[in-house]
Every structure is written in structure tokens, then in C-alpha cells.
């Protein structure tokens, strides 16, 4: 009888131990909870803070702001003609060079006709063309006309970064093991990153032209995969406070989200003062943003930004 109880107790102890071991093992396997915390491990590129800039001489800053010049690669299609026209009338005027690349020619607007229906192939051709025609421009910004971009803020973000180093920036996202920059909020590439990319385009194994066989990866993921082979990794573009600058949502949506998340601090809790992109706005909302960014302001509040960007010539809406 004693030994019966004994074996019962033995069983209990073993059972408890078994449970402990199993639960410990379970907590080691990657669950979705810990995944989102790992998010902090991804790379980010922060804009220089005002303090950091004060350490540079005025002439140095002037030199930097003259050197930061952006070639905009804008991927359009006739079916989104209104957005194409809006981008041409608004933000693209602030690129040092803005080139529209289309899938097929449109009678209404000018563009480089890539004559290519496949989206990944089209992006490859556009990037190759941009690289070949870069001149002395050292930064490249790839976007669709459904995105609105504030190029000056992009320049501010990369002001102190060396374009002969590989940079691949934007709204960095993760899909499984692959970190990539979301297409819809714009992709910024340094000259070196683009050079490596154009190089690996020639490798059909690592970076096939017609995309990975079995399933179609979106172009932004294909891009990330190819760049990864060259040692270039996606980085999240942020302001000095760590707020993301590349937004995949429209400013209206972000404001509404902030109204529910931060009802006491809606505007500050929403978006950065130096946001670079917003996505998903209607053409008229983009015209309003153009007015809001480049014209509307409160009199008597001056910002002594160390750098200077001049407005484009012959432009009425900025």
C-alpha cells in the first residue's frame, strides 16, 4: 500500500516535470508575439537632428544640400492617367530630375515607354534606364503616382549620408525572413545600391527577369531579394525621434487613426513634421497637400533650417 502511494507520487512528479519541460520548449519557438518585438531589430536610418547639424559649418551644409540631388523614377500606366497627371503637376516638380516610365504610351502625357506589361520587368527596365541616365545625380526615388512625396524631406533624411555607400530606404516591412521596402510608400536608393542592383540584374539565377517561377512575388519583395544578394538591406526611414517618414496610408487615414489612438494629442501622435511620403490620397487631396506643404503657413513662425531649397521655376502651386 505504501508503495502504491509511492508510485502515485512518482507519477505526479514526473507528470509535473514533463509539463514544465514541454512549456519551456514551447516558449522557445518563435511565436507571433515575440516576432513583433523583434521588429526593433531591423535597420533604421534616422534624419540628422537639429543639434547634429549645428556641428557642421554653414558652408559644409550648403555643400551637402547642393550635392543631395534626386532622380525620381515614377512608374505610371495609362489606366491611372489622373494620378499620373497629378504627380506631374505637383510633387514631381521638386525632383532634380523626374522621369515617368510607362507600360504603354499615352497620347496625353509624356513618358519613357518601356512597352512592358509585367510589373517586375518594367521596374527593372526603369531602374536600368535611370542608372544609365543618372548624370551626376546620386539618389534615386522610386514611386507610383498614387504616392505623394515631399522631396525636400527626403533630401533632409539623406543629407549626411554618403551615396557611394549602399542605402535602400523607405517603409521597411518584413515578410517571413525577407525585409523589404514597401513600394506604395516610395523606395529611396543611393547610387551604390542602384549600381549593385543593375549588376545583379544580369544574374538570371539570383535575380530572374520574369520573377520567381511558381508564385508571383510583388515587385518590392523581388527587389529586396535581389538587393539582399548584393549585401544591401532594407532600412526604415525615420525622423530624429524615430517616427516613420514613409507612410503607406493617406494623411486623412492617419489623422483618423490618431483620433482614436491619441485623442488628447492627435496631431503630434500622428505623423512626422518632416514626413516624406503618403499613399492612397485622391488627386484633389494631393493638390491640398501641395498647398499645405509648400504654401500654407502661420505668419510669424519661422524655422531656421540650416539648409535651403529653392522653389522650382515657373510653378504656380508651390
Amino acid at each position: 500500500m505504501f508503495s502504491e502511494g509511492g508510485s502515485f507520487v512518482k507519477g505526479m512528479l514526473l507528470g509535473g516535470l514533463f509539463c514544465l519541460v514541454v512549456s519551456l520548449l514551447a516558449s522557445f519557438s518563435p511565436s507571433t508575439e515575440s516576432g513583433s518585438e523583434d521588429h526593433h531589430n531591423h535597420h533604421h536610418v534616422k534624419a540628422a537632428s537639429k543639434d547634429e547639424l549645428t556641428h557642421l559649418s554653414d558652408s559644409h551644409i550648403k555643400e551637402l544640400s547642393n550635392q543631395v540631388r534626386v532622380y525620381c523614377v515614377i512608374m505610371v500606366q495609362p489606366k491611372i492617367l489622373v494620378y499620373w497627371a497629378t504627380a506631374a503637376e505637383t510633387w514631381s516638380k521638386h525632383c532634380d530630375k523626374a522621369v515617368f516610365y510607362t507600360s504603354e504610351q499615352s497620347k496625353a502625357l509624356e513618358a519613357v515607354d518601356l512597352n512592358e506589361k509585367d510589373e517586375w520587368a518594367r521596374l527593372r527596365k526603369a531602374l536600368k534606364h535611370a542608372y544609365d541616365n543618372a548624370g551626376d545625380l546620386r539618389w534615386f526615388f522610386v514611386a507610383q503616382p498614387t504616392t505623394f512625396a515631399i522631396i525636400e524631406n527626403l533630401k533632409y533624411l539623406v543629407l549626411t549620408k554618403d551615396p557611394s555607400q549602399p542605402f535602400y530606404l523607405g517603409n521597411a516591412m518584413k515578410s517571413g525572413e525577407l525585409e523589404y521596402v514597401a513600394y506604395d510608400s516610395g523606395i529611396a536608393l543611393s547610387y551604390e545600391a542602384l549600381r549593385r542592383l543593375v549588376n545583379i540584374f544580369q544574374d538570371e539565377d539570383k535575380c530572374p527577369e520574369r520573377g520567381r517561377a511558381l508564385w508571383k512575388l510583388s515587385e518590392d519583395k523581388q527587389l529586396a531579394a535581389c538587393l539582399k544578394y548584393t549585401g544591401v538591406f532594407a532600412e526604415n526611414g525615420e525622423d530624429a525621434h524615430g517616427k516613420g517618414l514613409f507612410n503607406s496610408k493617406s494623411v486623412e487615414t492617419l489623422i483618423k487613426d490618431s483620433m482614436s489612438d491619441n485623442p488628447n494629442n492627435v496631431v503630434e501622435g500622428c505623423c512626422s513634421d518632416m514626413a516624406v511620403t503618403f499613399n492612397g490620397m485622391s488627386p484633389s487631396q494631393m493638390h491640398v497637400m501641395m498647398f499645405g506643404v509648400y504654401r500654407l503657413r502661420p505668419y510669424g513662425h519661422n524655422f531656421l533650417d540650416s539648409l535651403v531649397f529653392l522653389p522650382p521655376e515657373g510653378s504656380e502651386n508651390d
Partner: protein
Amino acid sequence: MKAPKYQFSFYAGFLVGTITLYVFLRQVRFESTLLSQHGTNLNKVSDDQEQLEKEIKKWRKEGSALFNLEHPHHPGEDGRMADELYKKVRILCWVMTAPKNLEKKTRHVKSTWSRHCNIVIFMSSVEDPDFPTVGLGTKEGRDQLYWKTIKAFHYVYEHHINEADWFLKADDDTYVIVDNLRLVLANHTPEEPVYFGRRFKPYVKQGYMSGGAGYVLSKEALRRFVGGFKTNVCTHASSTEDVEMGRCMEKVGVLAGDSRDSMQRERFHPFVPEQHLTHKFPKSFWYWSYCYHPISEGPNCCSDLSVSFHYVGASQMYLMEYYTYHLRAFGYNYHYQPPAPLGYGIEKSVEVKNRPAPQKNRRGDGEDQSRTDKRQNADPPQAAGKDPPAAPSG
């Protein structure tokens, strides 16, 4: 024979042990998440309290008026000019509202543009000591608009005439950029009998100001308004607030001012920016025949230093605040530089840095901009009962 018994009790013990420990572990995990949640909840509560304390420090409540204790500043800005104007051009803003709007509209006005007024008073039919709102003792409804306006201005005259120089009326769906209003008023004195807004031409010889776009009276204009009612020169002739206001102003000799900027662009707007910048109003729309000055569609519709927009919803209040005070293109030299107000210490040299060439000559006349082929439905969002030609108001 003993073996099965041992086996049985062993397995039973194993099961009991597993279950016990499982329950125990779950309880521990649950409690730890509860603690951390409690921790974050506490943080949230203390954050909210901090916010509340900050709020209390920003306003001084006197009766139903909110006195702005600190002019909102942006980190890293040079606000000296704005501060000087804040001291010299004191504006009392009163916002026309109603009890049912406090939660869904008015509190967003309170959180955004009204913080830039020297004093703000929310005028309602019923008093609300917490918000706070003044109770004007009227009913609600479109037919009460002029009554509310008359009583509101009388209230302001009786309680605050000496505490401000200019008196602005706005709706709870008007967004006002008070700093830009100060620029308009800086070259005038409160002793001038003048009022400013978006000028409409019908009904009143010198024109009248659109109610919804907001209008601002000088101290002298307010005195004459109140005086006009004492002597029955002005009466509640109809409920059309803005037209009647315009009639009264004309009768008591208050001038309808021109609020356009130095490039003849309007600053007070009866619609949202989207409408003015991108809409093509049909020729039959009343707006064309109402505007005192020629209308511009497209970018010339609106001054860079615009003062007001109307029909602005709750989330748009925050959007306007973001566009006006926060979002900008870093380092950008604005195309348009307004002439600095006379007699102010901080000259515009602060704004104009490193500008290589003189300003381009911008078209400032009322001609329409180039049209695109888009056919758009140009009816603006009709506010409840905004009926044009007969009697437009607010």
C-alpha cells in the same frame, strides 16, 4: 498482480501532476500579464493626468471664457514675430455652437485652432460650465442665428470689451489660422470702424461678410454694433445672420474691409481648401455672383497666408492644424513673402535668407487658371439648409 495497480497509480499520478502544473503555470503567466497590463494602464492613467494638468496650465478659465496663457510654440521655431503680434493684436474668438455639437465638433475646435486666440468663448443656447460654453438663452436652429449673434456680441461687449482689440466670430465648422488674421489686422487699429471677412456683394451696398468664413470686428465696430441696437438703428430684421450683420455695419458707418493679400488673393474662404483649389464651380452656382472681388479657381484662389476655411469637419480640423503648423518641406524658401506689418521690430529679414533673385511676378488678377479636362461635380457640400440666392448665411 501487484504490477497493474502500481502502473495504474503511476499513470494517475502522472496525469494529476501534469494537470496541476499546467494550471499553475497558466495562472502565473496570467498574473504576470495582468501586472504588466496594470502597469501600462497605470502609465496611461498617469499620462492622461499629465495631459489634463498641461491643459489646465494652458488655459485660465474665467467664467465661460478661456484665456490662453501660452501662445502655442513649435519646438525649434523662431516665434518672435508671432509673439509680438500676439501681444499687440489681441483677438477674442467666439465660436457659434450648440449643445448637440460639443462632443462631435466643438471640442475639436477647442483642441486645435482656438488655442491660438488670446481669448476664446464658446457660445451656445445653453450654458455648460464644464466645456465651458455661455448660455445665450435662445433656442437652436437656423432661424436663431442672428439672435445668437446679437446676444453673443453683446455678451462679449459687456464682459470683455477691454480685454481684446478685435472680435472674431466663427462657426464650429470654421477653421481659422489666427496668426494670419493678426497679419491682416496688424496694419489697422482697433479704433478704426472696420470689419473683415469674405466679402459678398448682394443685398448690402458696401457688401457684407460671409458668416461661415468668419468675420472680425474692430473694437470700435463692436461698440457701434451694440450702440446701433440701443438706438434701434439696428434691429433683428431677419434671421439671416451675415446679411443683417452687413446691413447693421453699413448703417452705423463701419467699413467693409478688403482682406485680400498683397497679390489680391482671398484669405477668408467659404469652403474647404479642396473645393477652392480643385473644384470648378458651375457658372450657375450662386458663388460666382456673390463674391465681391473676382473669383480665382486653382492655386490663386487662396493666399499662402489664408485666414479661414468653412465646412471643416472634425478630422479635418486636425488635418488643417497638421498642414498649417506641423508638416512642411524642410529648408524650403517660400515663393511668396508678404510685406511685413508696419512698425514691428522683427523685420522680414528673418524670413528671407539666401534668396538669390527677386520675387517672380505672380499673377494676382482674378482670371481663371488653365482648365483641365476633368468634369467634376462642383456642388460643394451643402450644409443643412444652406440655400443660396434667397438668403445665404453661415
